[in-house]
């Protein structure tokens, strides 16, 4: 599944990022493949979303979240 399908406070493991530029950017911001990712908050207008991985805390648009393959944690 992809990251945009998670609701607030749900977590997953980052498997693959389909867009190469996005992957390079997210890696540099601390979102590393194989690590846990969590949706902290969804903006009042449903987009963008706030996500965390470790102590990294960023916002990202739904369209980009759709490009992130994850494995949902229960």
């Amino acid at each position, binding site marked *: 599944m992809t990251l945009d399908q998670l609701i607030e406070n749900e977590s997953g493991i980052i498997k693959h990022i389909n867009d190469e*530029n996005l992957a390079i*950017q*997210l890696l*540099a*911001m601390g979102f590393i493949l194989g690590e846990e990712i969590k949706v902290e908050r969804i903006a009042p207008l449903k987009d963008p979303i*706030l996500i965390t991985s470790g102590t990294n805390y960023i916002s990202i648009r739904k369209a980009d979240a759709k490009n992130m393959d994850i494995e949902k944690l229960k």
Partner: protein
Amino acid sequence: MSKSNIKNIILIGNPNTGKSSLFNSLTGLNQKVGNFPGVTVDKKTGSFKIKQTKITVVDLPGTYSLNPNSEDEKVAKNYIEKANEDDIIIVVADVTNLKRNLLLYTQIIDQGKQVILVLNMMDLLQKNNQEIDLSKLSNLLGCPVIPINARIEKGIEELKHAIISFQKKENSFIESNSSSNVVDETMLRFNKINQIVNECLIKKGEDKSYLLTKKIDNIITHKFYGYLIFLGLLFIIFQAIFSWSSYPMDLIENGFIWLSNFVADVLPKGVLNDLIVNGIIAGLGGIVIFVPQIAILFAFITILEDTGYMARVSFLMDRVLRIFGLNGKSIIPLLSSTACAIPAIMSARTISNYKERLITIMVAPLISCSARIPVYTILIALIVPEDSYFGVFNMQGLLVMGLYLLGFVAAILSAWVMKLIIKSKQHSTFTLEMPIYRSPRWKNVGFEIFSKVKIFLFDAGKIIIAISIILWVLSSYAPGTKFEEISEKYTTETIQQQHTEQEIESLIASEKLEASYAGIIGKTIEPVIRPLGFDWKIGISLVTSFAAREVFVGTMATLYSVGDEDNTKSIREKMMMAKNPQTGEKLYTTATTLSLLIFYVFAMQCMATLAIVYRETNSIKWPIIQVVYMGALAYLCSLLVFNIFS
């Protein structure tokens, strides 16, 4: 000083690592802001001395890696690549987020550069229940590691010592060309970083650093309270600018009236006296008086950025701004525009999508900047009394807020139109770090206010004084013998019987002004601006405003000073008394004043901004479009307003 006694260091690091605090601690006030060649990214340089060695410091824009994602990051990357082999690169890392921060370090090491790693925010590490083995980290990385706390200037001396005793050595992190793919290469780096961090960083308990931040975010980004807080903040800022600042402004105003009287009395009467009092002091006074308002505005903007609030506003506004072809990140340039369009347009560089960035640049000058404050203040005072209140709110403050709102709405709507016109296939993103909330670093706020006020006073001041002098010359001289003819006309007995001496003096003065070179220029453009309710004196101001909008006030001061020999009145009083020579009625009627206000909200009257737009877009096309569309908007709206109210 011999060459060996000079060392160059370059500061680089992720955004929000306290790099600028460190830069300020190292260099103090011994710094200047310039530009990197070819681009308008702020280049902060400074220097300090230690044991006879002069150390020059360059502060690069914050960047996450050497794989640039924006103009800012490109500058940092290029600068590092071209760095001299003797330059020491200081990588500033946030120790509470070591893993991510080390990525940049490893990339720079693999460029074959000499590096000192600085770990900032050591105090927070303890609070997060963590400990770090510094000597082990230094051994594993193979470079000096200096722990600091830039906020309270701890570790700065140790860093300075490390800089002068630095020994060059060969070093690398991963084998070069081990992967052709950036993603794979980065993962390789992270794997190794992970091992190192796991060995050096000891977790003694749960990391609670983000708990408070997330709690605050529950309120700040709330679907209702979030927007309410934002509006409330804007409201407080505007009330502050117009009520808190009135006390120092009155002091400055009275000071300048006193000064011009003093100088007028002390210096011998004549042309020089007249030039200094009515040209230079009048122009200067019109500028210095706005320092309190500009300082307050920059203070607020710096605090909002420094605390981490601005990133949340961007997050809240992204979806809305996208409708208008903008980006959540546009909120920073748009809000900064309330201070000055120049830094605002430069801050648009963080927007990676070209179309969104271009639209932000194109509409930012529609947002009322601090240079309009002087114009608004003086014009509003002509139609709304100072002590007029709407409930508890100061009426003048409300009106100014209305003008700011008008500018904002115009910017948003123009952006929407441009979104439909400008074509782009580039993918748009909004990847923005939410920094942890922290109290503002007051020293940084102070530095920021100081440097912005300095720019305003000296850069703008220079132009303003030059224009004041030119204006004084243009309004004090006329072609041929025009002035003599006017003086002669009033020496006839019939006129002397009809008027008092004072009346004659002011009649002569106003006729002379009209006949002067300035009058001729104003009269030439008068037919064009007459439909808006403007006379030739306003016409002159519109022309001089092109240097900077606040010149309007100085121009008014100079134009109305000529003929006021006693210097007892403020500009406002002089304008209040100004008469329309044709009808004999008050010149600044509600219709004319409102029309003029609207004109200043919309018109593109700033050469400096146009120059920046030219450099940022790298094309003459965009500044020209900007002048034309904003000018047309200003003219049409002023025309409309004047006709409604007259």
